[in-house]
């Protein structure tokens, strides 16, 4: 945790300092310090890493054991109600009464956020359309598929036009197509709707696609927090795939003075300068080997977990 984040107070979406939550002897969140800028923010961690606890503290529903946190510039310990007026929350667990229609339910939730009746109805119609729920919104939710239920849960979080939505595992239980649609929606909320998003997941890959920045926690501690672009930046390794004779090509390139490693059927070559592309091409041509693929490798966020405790203090995001 560091203090280097102090200057950007006004622009912070979420800011925590030494945030800690203990339940008896269990420490769910441990001295967390982050400073997150508005946008689509991913909160990644394995199950039990403290993600849901963190969201509940951000909503002001759980009091931190120690440390501080502010959301939209409001203190979670003292201004919980004002936070909850401006924030939408999509819980991980099921929260839909089966005997109500989506329309009735979202209208009710909008009114419980303080919207007058007519506004609540208008916003409900808008929001349900945005999440892609049409005719079925008049039917009792007991008969909805998982995909439809997730959409209603998202709609109720957006119904009162919040400045920030907290989405707890929104892709849980969805099939690949539903997952893609949900991720697309989350991206749209952040870009088209102009609403900041904090989305949790235990899957790095999906957050990589939609988030501007990512906070990774493990065992309630901060592993890393930085922009997605940094995390997935191109590395200095060129990957080469050939149809056959990779050993011959490797030997040839080593003679050319390149650092080459064989990883399965791929050759990984340390990037010295752009000249290596020519060397690989010429080498393959001389040996009569078919060149299938040649590309700069990108860092995967998954590598973060492999690298876990090597770097911890890099705090400022986006």
């Amino acid at each position, binding site marked *: 945790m560091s203090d280097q984040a102090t200057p950007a107070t006004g622009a912070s979406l979420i800011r925590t300092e030494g945030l800690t939550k203990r339940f008896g002897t269990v420490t769910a969140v441990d001295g967390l310090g982050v400073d997150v800028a508005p946008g689509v923010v991913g909160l990644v961690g394995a199950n039990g890493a403290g993600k849901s606890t963190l969201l509940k503290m951000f909503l002001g529903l759980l009091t931190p054991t120690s440390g501080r946190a502010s959301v939209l510039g409001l203190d979670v310990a003292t201004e919980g*109600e004002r936070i909850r007026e401006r924030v939408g929350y999509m819980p991980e667990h*099921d929260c839909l009464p089966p005997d109500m229609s989506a329309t009735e339910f979202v209208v*009710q939730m909008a009114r419980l956020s303080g919207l007058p009746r007519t506004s609540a109805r208008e916003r409900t119609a808008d929001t349900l359309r945005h999440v892609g729920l049409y005719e079925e919104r008049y039917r009792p939710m007991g008969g909805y598929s998982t995909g439809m239920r997730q959409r209603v849960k998202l709609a109720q979080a957006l119904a009162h036009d919040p400045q920030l939505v907290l989405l707890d595992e929104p892709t849980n239980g969805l099939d690949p197509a539903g997952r893609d649609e949900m991720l697309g929606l989350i991206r749209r909320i952040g870009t088209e709707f102009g609403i900041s998003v904090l989305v949790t997941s235990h899957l790095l890959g999906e957050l990589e696609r939609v988030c501007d920045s990512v906070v990774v926690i493990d065992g309630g501690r901060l592993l890393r927090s930085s922009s997605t672009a940094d995390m997935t930046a191109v590395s200095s390794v060129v990957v080469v795939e050939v149809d056959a004779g990779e050993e011959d090509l490797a030997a040839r390139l080593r003679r050319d003075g390149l650092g080459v490693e064989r990883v399965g059927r791929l050759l990984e070559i340390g990037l010295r300068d752009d000249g290596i592309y020519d060397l690989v091409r010429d080498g393959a041509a001389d040996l009569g080997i078919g060149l299938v693929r040649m590309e700069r490798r990108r860092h995967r966020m998954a590598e973060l977990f492999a690298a876990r405790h090597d770097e911890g203090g890099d705090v400022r995001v986006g």
Partner: protein
Amino acid sequence: MSVEGAGPAAGDREHGVIHDIGYRHYDGPRLGRSYIQRSLFTESLKGSYGFGRAARTKVMPMLLLAAMCVPTLIIVVVASVTGGDELPVGYTAYLIQLQVVIAVYVAAQAPASVSRDLRFGIVPLYFSRPMRRVDYVRAKYAASATAVFVLLAAPLTILFLGALLTEMPLGEHLPDYLRSLAFAALLAVVLAGMGLVIAAFTPRRGLGIAAIVSVLLVLAGVQTAAQNIAVVEGADTAADYLGLISPFSLVDGVAHDVFGTDTVLWGEPPGAVGTAVFVAVTVLLVAGCYGLLLRRYRKVTGT
């Protein structure tokens, strides 16, 4: 946004148009906690009679409301044929005679109001809004008591209107009617409190229904039996105090002493001490139910 008749691409276009409307921000008023509490109250009250819910949830409350009201129509018709200044049955006496129906309604409605929210995880979602736990408990309690009051006041009102239509004296019936409404209001508050507490601690709806019916009917049964034994044994004062056992006889006693209704169940609170005891027990019962509900929701933050 209509694109009807827009040619072969109408299907695609329609889809596109829906997205093109874009997101509209809301800049209207955001009302405070008292509005939010009122909204939850109205929603719960409507829900108690199945409005705004699936069609089948209306069946039970409507049947019970009919069960409360249909006999009063018959009573009114009989009264109009036989004439006279009195209805064949008194206002509060009518309610006591139908205590089984009332108990069943409370048992069906309280779990539908609170167990449902707990069971389906809606409570944590409510608390993610600018609403406090005390707001939730108050709105639910008020809605539940109002729902029971509607069930009790409807037949009383039919009886009263019937009495007026058959030209019975207004001067006698209006005070009786108003007193019986006070009785109904008190009974509603007591029964709703007991029902909600039991329901809030039994998230399984079926169990809640069974628990509430048994508690209310067993207490009424025990009260009647014990009182009869006491009377036979000649222990009159004891018999009177046995009215404390059942919420129906408890409210009957308080209403007799405070509002001046006729007692229907045997006996009445003995003397000023009796009155004080009955009133105190009622107040403690209601306050206890409210306190227990607050305690129940103090820890709920989500699962």
